[in-house]
């Protein structure tokens, strides 16, 4: 394959790499005179990268590059666009918060862009080494970001914890990959599936490898029982970084789960689906029940993420590999829809937390939301939409997402254990509804001490409003995004 074709395929990543370096260097010279220059450049870069990443969406072409290391298709385009969008939202939400805390520097942008580059590489990876490279790039950038406030004890602790456990997870993943390589002699995900299909590899080695890979992915998703780092890191990391952690990396984790497990190891579906079922149920139970006991908002969102990831795993479980392609695509499309809307809702929640914080005051406790409906009814309304969406209540998109997952879960299986999974998941949603509703209650029913309306710049105001309303509009009219996700997955599965 000639280099030009390769380059066209990786255009978004190449562009992002260039921009990240440019921002890093330019900030050194412009920081004093134009404090917002790097911010503007970053947003422009993200817009350009988004335009480049949207390409496969219109053509629908699958492009392999660099000898099959890299794959650019409609599915990667949708996930990348969401990740880019989430990163841009993060920066917009973070601006006033970071300015007041001396974090509004080139490092934030450059590391954010590098993390995004890692995310995008993972999304497009078609080779286990590529997956690992992307993962490490993302993780290293995020370790740095978590520790950005090095004078803050909690942030440092969070960074250490994240680094140690993250390294362990990377080790798991790498170990699993090496076993897969040992059994099949290939790192290419497509070739992996073919070699397993042809039947020579030793099954036990493959299963052992799969166990480690699944554990690694569960670690990155934050699924129980590999979730221990999530609440601590969410709580300890600076809020903008927690937002970054909570959104884009989940998209990447979904992508690698899909690429490795569904595309690479379909023959071992029976094995990994059982593991995923256990992970999903444990996450939903542990996440929801533990979140109830939290008083810290960021920590609560951490546990809520664990529960949400459990739901996402349910959808991964739902697709029966090798069955009817359309139904399978429906299941993985549901998972993709779930993770995209989850990223959107989480971004909004952290946005509200950032908005509430003032100079020298971290609005992290649930109690800090008291009386928000009186102070700023509009933001209380937006936060209400976000909470309802995370709780999965109509007419918000959170309901649609949970509904398509449940529907997928029971679609192929007909009867048997899947129904019980659906019922259990639904029952724990009621527990989940309790703590999300408690936030709504705190905002609307409790009296606050602070009566001042929240102040926000125009970019923040527009972004947060659009974010909240998007959840409502997508909830009422989900067809467009749902069809996009289903179509992308269908093509990825070769239907």
């Amino acid at each position, binding site marked *: 394959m000639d280099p030009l074709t390769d380059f066209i395929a990786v255009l978004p990543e190449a562009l992002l790499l260039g921009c990240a370096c440019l921002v890093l260097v330019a900030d050194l010279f412009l920081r004093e005179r134009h404090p917002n220059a790097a911010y503007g450049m970053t947003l422009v870069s993200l817009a350009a990268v988004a335009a480049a990443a949207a390409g496969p969406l219109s053509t629908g072409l699958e492009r392999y590059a660099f000898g099959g290391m890299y794959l650019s298709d409609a599915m990667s385009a949708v996930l990348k666009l969401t990740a880019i969008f989430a990163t841009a939202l993060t920066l917009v939400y973070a601006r006033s918060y970071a300015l007041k805390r001396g974090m509004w520097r080139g490092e934030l942008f450059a590391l954010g862009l590098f993390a995004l580059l890692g995310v995008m590489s993972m999304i497009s990876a078609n080779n286990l080494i590529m997956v690992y490279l992307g993962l490490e790039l993302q993780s290293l950038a995020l370790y740095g970001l978590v520790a950005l406030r090095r004078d803050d004890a909690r942030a440092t602790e969070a960074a250490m914890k994240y680094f140690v456990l993250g390294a362990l997870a990377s080790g798991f993943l790498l170990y699993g990959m090496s076993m897969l390589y040992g059994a099949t002699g290939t790192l290419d995900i497509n070739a992996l599936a073919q070699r397993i299909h042809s039947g020579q590899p030793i099954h036990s080695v493959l299963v052992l490898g799969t166990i480690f890979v699944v554990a690694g992915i569960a670690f990155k998703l934050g699924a129980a029982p590999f979730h221990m780092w999530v609440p601590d890191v969410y709580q300890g990391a600076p809020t903008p970084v927690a937002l970054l952690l909570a959104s884009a990396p989940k998209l990447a984790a979904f992508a690698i789960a899909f690429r490795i497990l569904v595309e690479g190891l379909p023959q071992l579906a029976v094995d990994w689906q059982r593991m995923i079922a256990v992970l999903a149920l444990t996450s939903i139970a542990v996440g929801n029940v533990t979140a109830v006991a939290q008083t810290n908002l960021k920590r609560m969102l951490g546990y809520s993420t664990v529960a949400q990831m459990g739901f996402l795993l349910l959808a991964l479980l739902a697709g029966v590999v090798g069955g009817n392609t359309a139904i399978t695509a*429906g299941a993985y*499309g549901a998972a993709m829809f779930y993770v995209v809307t989850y990223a959107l809702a989480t971004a909004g929640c952290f946005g509200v937390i950032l908005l509430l914080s003032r100079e020298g005051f971290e609005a992290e406790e649930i109690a800090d939301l008291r009386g928000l*409906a*009186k102070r700023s*009814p*509009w933001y209380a*309304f937006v936060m209400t939409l976000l909470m*309802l969406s995370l709780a999965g*209540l*109509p*007419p918000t998109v959170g*309901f*649609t997402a949970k*509904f*398509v997952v*449940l*529907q997928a879960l*029971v*679609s192929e299986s*007909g009867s048997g254990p899947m*129904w019980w999974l*659906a*019922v259990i998941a*639904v*029952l724990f*949603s*009621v527990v989940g*509804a*309790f703590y999300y*509703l*408690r936030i*709504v*209650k705190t905002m*609307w*029913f*409790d009296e606050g001490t602070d009566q001042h309306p929240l102040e926000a710049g125009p970019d923040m105001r527009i972004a947060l409003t659009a974010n909240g309303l998007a959840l409502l509009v997508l909830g009422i*009219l*989900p*067809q467009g995004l*749902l*069809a996009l996700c*289903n179509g992308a997955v269908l093509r990825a599965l070769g239907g």
Partner: protein
Amino acid sequence: MSAHFPWLSLAIWLPIVFGAYLLAVGRTAAPGGIRAVALTGAVLSLLVTLPVIAGFDAGTPNLQFTEKFLWIARPTAHYYLGVDGISMWFVPLTAFITVIAVLAGWKSIETRLSQYYAAFLILSGLMIGVFCAADGLLFYVFFEATLIPMYLIIGVWGGPRRVYAAIKFFLYTLLGSLLMLVALVYLYQASGGSFDIIAWQKLPLGRTPQILLFLAFLAAFAVKVPMWPVHTWLPDAHVEAPTAGSVVLAAIMLKLGAYGFLRFSLPIAPDAAHELSWLIIAMSLIAVVYIGFVALVQTDMKKLVAYSSIAHMGFVTLGFFVFSPAGVEGAIAQMISHGFVSGAMFLCIGVLYDRTHSRNIADYGGVVNTMPRFAAFAMLFAMANCGLPATSGFVGEFLVILGAVQFDFWIGAIAATTLVLGAAYSLWMYKRVIFGDIGNPAVAQLQDIDGREFLALGLLAVAVLWMGVYPAPVIDVLHTSVAELLAHVSQAKFVAGSL
């Protein structure tokens, strides 16, 4: 499906648009303007339901005023609306009660006015949506979405224990409806990928799935109705809700559950309905008798009416499960009548509460001396509550007892005790509050009802009397649809011997 004007969509979305507008203007608008916009919205929303009454053809059991558009392609769901004889009257009833609710909060609500009225208008549109939805998923979305405004209404404008009551209300009903969601998903699979409720009704189902479906629907609707023993959220919610919240809750929201039995439980799982009818009948009779006694000993007026609502709704579910035209039509008539009467009772309590800030029966006595016009209205509604002939309450109770006696004499006899119990708690409360000597100085200073209150109570009084004296327009609409429903329910859906 001829191209006609989408009246049902208009009835659903007009109040929601008004509500959204009120939210948008928010704090900037003057209170007078907000009230005027809210009332205009409510009245216009009522007016657009009139063509539905006028254009309704009582001769066919099919859905009318249908609108159908593709909503979600995969899994396939439609924006599919339509009304039949069973649901038709609830559309104008909901809009009518919303007008009353807007009038009820006219003076007593002073905080967050625009949000208050927005919540009621949006709630009204959503509830009409529940009655009109002919697509299972659409039904569910409307059904669940009604929880949110009601949660806020109770929690923001409610009494001292409002937070507890609001969360209890929400979680109780959510738990029930999520099980229904699983049932809906199952039906989607079983019907080969359709959310069409009418198609579901024709779907052949085995015995076990029918029973599981029936129980899942029961979980959702029994909580909403509410039936004994899952009724405990209702007294809390009513006591803490503001007057208008109680009016809407009692008059319409409880009917969503009862309506669900007619739309889902009976036609989709008819064999299970027959098999488990003893359970529902037992739960209903306990509600009628036991809850009737519980109502008798209440010292809080709102609690008393709340328990009386549970007893009356027990009558409704009893009527459904005796499987006769008289029973089902009587139950539907009872639902409509209860909408007027319970709404009126809560409004009356609200009138007193606005003046004295007490709901304790013991704090009153001799109100007739200072509020004679109010006493006259309250008399009418108390009588209607115990089912006096020539009031709307009589029609439904009579038909249900008739149906119950046809089904089984003793069931009818136990149900008929409601006439005694209802009279006892309604009239005893009336006597203690309205008659006697003025014992409390606050009562001596009471002002009689003003023009706005007179209008709200007067409208309800007209409705109660009209339905009591001349119920034919309401009952006639029901015949064809109820006959079709019962004919459908009487046929077994599964082949004998199969599971």
